[in-house]
């Protein structure tokens, strides 16, 4: 009898203990999931303020969505996972509060669309937003959500890919298609292109617009294309080094700016969607004296960072080439994208070091224990907008000093398109001593050079190569055919133009 009672005691006691534990965990969970609890460690007032201005707080219905509703996975997906992530996030915030200064954290980078899916759980969005087709949704909205329904898994689409401003307000964020033309600011409307009768830097003036482009005379010469094998942070596609000859050319002092790009857009844009094949055909005809330009972009291609002299970004390689075609027609000169060899020659400005200024990529981008010590980045920060000083956005050219040729932002700020197609072994195919080498004739992707505001110091070396990722850069574009003018999933891509030297000048 006594034994039975003991067993019963154990069972009941265990049950009671279990219930108490469960209640305890539940209470602890509830307590630590309040906004106040989150904010006690995650003391970033801007996040709080921007949340209060977002549709998840400031809306017609008065419903407020708390931190934990978006920044934790739904419990229904598994309690283990929920608590693991909760503990991890809590520990991270606690650690940050204990050892970091708020100012040292790159908050801007954490708000970007590439980072956001790591801290916002898609399943949590969908837990509340069960119906993606609410009454009153626009036709574009339906098309986008049908695209999401069909491709979410295949392409790993997230709600925040398109609704980045849902939880925290973003100035100027929009889904709308750009309407009409874009204001390019004050300034005289030029009537004629610049006169170029000598090989020296000049300012191109685009007739019918207020756009001017400072063109720097880049003297011809010989240089070593690529990087030596012992260059820190080097990648194998930067070799083998080849000694090549480059003819003189003019190159835009800066990446093409929004003001310059919108001038092109305003003159050539077409509201309706013309099939890509028709656009290619029209723009390929020599007998036409006009070009068919971009369709209106959706959202805000400047990312809300401002237009003006910041580099124009997110256009496709085709849009950049069409810009050159337009500029050539307007000025009577031959504008085009630089070849990869021209680009690197111009970036080096006669130097053969990792950067055109002093410095070791390893020191600028310390890894391992060195990271704790930090690095002296005074020099690189003077010339390059990169991860270390951007904060997570492009900057105006006035923020940096020029290279020895007088060119700005060759390294960093926005990646730049080259005319060449990309091949990993492109340099192996170039004969030593080649004159004005060009890239391979075949290839799906184009060369992209210079790195961007988001890159570490190692990726903004003069020799660092990269390339377009066409399909990935259009991943969330719900249109079909997808845009041939605007990329939806890359931000830091722009271009600069070169102008061929007219034959009749010295």
């Amino acid at each position, binding site marked *: 009898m006594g034994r039975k009672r003991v067993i019963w005691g154990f069972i009941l006691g265990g049950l009671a203990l279990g219930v108490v534990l469960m209640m305890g965990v539940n209470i602890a969970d509830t307590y630590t999931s309040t906004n106040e609890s989150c904010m006690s460690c995650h003391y970033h007032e801007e996040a709080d303020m921007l949340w209060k201005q977002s549709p998840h707080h400031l809306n017609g219905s008065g419903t407020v969505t708390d931190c934990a509703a978006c920044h934790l996975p739904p419990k229904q997906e598994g309690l283990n996972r929920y608590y693991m992530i909760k503990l991890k996030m809590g520990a991270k915030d606690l650690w940050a509060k204990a050892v970091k200064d708020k100012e040292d954290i790159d908050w801007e980078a954490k708000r970007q669309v590439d980072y956001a899916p790591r801290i916002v759980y898609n399943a949590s969005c969908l837990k509340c937003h069960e119906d993606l087709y609410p009454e009153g949704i626009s036709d574009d909205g339906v098309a986008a959500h*049908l695209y999401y329904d069909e491709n979410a898994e295949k392409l790993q689409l997230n709600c925040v890919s398109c609704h980045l401003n849902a939880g925290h307000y973003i100035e100027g964020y929009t889904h709308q298609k750009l309407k009409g033309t874009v204001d390019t600011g004050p300034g005289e409307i030029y009537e004629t292109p610049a006169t170029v009768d000598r090989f020296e830097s000049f300012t191109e003036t685009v007739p019918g617009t207020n756009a001017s482009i400072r063109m720097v005379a880049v003297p011809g010469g010989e240089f070593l294309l690529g990087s030596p094998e012992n260059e820190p942070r080097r990648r194998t596609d930067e070799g083998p080094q080849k000694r090549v000859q480059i003819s003189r050319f003019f190159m835009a002092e800066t990446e093409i700016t929004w003001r310059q790009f919108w001038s092109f857009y305003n003159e050539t844009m077409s509201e309706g969607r013309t099939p890509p094949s028709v656009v290619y055909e029209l723009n390929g005809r020599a007998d036409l004296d006009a070009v068919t330009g971009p369709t209106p972009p959706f959202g805000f291609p400047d990312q809300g960072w401002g237009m003006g002299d910041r580099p124009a970004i997110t256009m496709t390689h085709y849009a950049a080439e069409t810009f050159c075609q337009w500029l050539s027609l307007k000025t009577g000169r031959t504008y085009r994208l630089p070849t990869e060899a021209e680009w690197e020659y111009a970036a080096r400005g006669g130097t053969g070091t990792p950067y055109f200024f002093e410095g070791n990529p390893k020191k600028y981008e310390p890894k391992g224990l060195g990271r704790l010590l930090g690095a002296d980045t005074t020099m690189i920060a003077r010339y390059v907008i990169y991860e270390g000083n951007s904060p997570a956005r492009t900057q105006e050219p006035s923020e940096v000093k020029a290279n020895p040729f007088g060119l700005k932002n060759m390294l960093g700020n926005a990646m730049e398109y080259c005319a060449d197609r990309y091949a990993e072994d492109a340099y192996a195919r170039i004969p030593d001593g080649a004159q004005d080498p060009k890239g391979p004739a075949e290839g799906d992707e184009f060369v992209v050079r210079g790195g961007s505001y988001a890159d570490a110091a190692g990726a903004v070396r003069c020799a660092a190569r990269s390339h377009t990722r066409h399909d990935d850069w259009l991943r969330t574009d719900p249109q079909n055919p997808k845009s041939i003018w605007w990329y939806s999933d890359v931000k830091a891509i722009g271009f600069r133009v070169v102008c061929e030297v007219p034959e009749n000048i010295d």
Partner: protein
Amino acid sequence: MSAKMNRRSFLVTGAAVGAAGLVGGSLLSACSGGKKDAKLTPLREPGSYYIPELPDKAIDGRPLKAGLIGCGGRGNGAVNDLLEAADGITITALGDVFPDRVQSTRESIAKEHGQEVPAENCFTGFDAYQKVIDSGVDMVIVATPPVFRPVHFQYATSKGVHSFLEKPICVDAKGYRTIMATAKQAEAKGLSVVTGTQRHHERAYVESFKKIQEGLIGEITGGNVYWNQGMLWYRERQKGWSDMEWMIRDWVNWKWLSGDHIVEQHVHNIDVFTWMLGAHPVKATGVGSRQRRITGDQYDNFSIDFEFENGIHMHSFCRQIDGCSSNVSEFVQGTKGSWNSQDFAIRDLQGNILWQYDEEAAKAQFTQHNPYVLEHVDWVNHIRKGEAHIEAAETGQSSLAGTMGREAAYTGNTVTWDEISASELDYMPEKLELGKMDMSKYTVPVPGTGK
């Protein structure tokens, strides 16, 4: 699919399994030849797909007021089917663009069914649909030319009215998107929406569907679907008719109104294949032409190669030309056998019949076999039980599949699902009024020319 639907499908399947004890034996008794494979691999888990209950008559319940939008032949037919399917239903409102249509329908309802539709509830004009829906009806039959379907469905759903949507339910990409979004909204509101793809409510098809899902023909590897018949009807233009009036009265011959016959009629057969497979096509390439159609701007024959995920192909073939062979049927090939709707038989790869729909057995069990009536039984039953039931998304996809095939033939180009579903294709004229139209816009498409 909502949890509610899953539960219901589960119960339905449970009931079907129970009923199999009663009928199953006799249905299977038609087997001959081939070995019975005891271990079938189902294509989909039972309960994950919808099997309609098909009683002879709808359950009794609260009285319902029904409206009719589109008083043509199909609209009148649907009214008859509805009133045969269920008791306690009153037709309380009528709408059509043309007064003569409303009048004749009103008279026929009085004569055939003894129901007097109040004169103040008889509406004409392009906005008649709104007035019918706003007149206080519980349910509405939408049987106008298909181009109008998405907008009418959207309005009915916004007002919480149950819809019966005659097929096809869209003829262009814009309409498709409206249908898909509205279908979700209707589901959220707990509405019952049945579409006129009546094969889904035809006993022989439903029994075949079950057998195929159970795995009797193995994995589906391809198929052929047909709607080859003689010329349909047309209307010569009458004196005093405006361009718009003529087009609407002659609507089965005009692209923008009907979607062409591959969508308007052949959608039935395409829909059978997508129903059996449980997937929409991803690509279409095809040919089509106009040989002997008299009015309008449509083709009268199409032959389309539809491609699905996994490389499955389905050939679709439709024709409306007199004096040619007729065939209205579907054929589905699987890894273990095939099924076709000419004799509703499943054959193994040697041609031995493994299973065949037993019409006699079904007749012994049921009295109602008209699928046009049975689809209304299902519609009313869901309304009276208060259960959401939405067929619009599935039929929207088959309608878009037809549209994709049509565009492939019109242009001569391969058209993908991603292209057509996001396309700006919108057949609705900017202005809807009985007047002059820019008739130069309505031309027969010439493949390869972009026109």
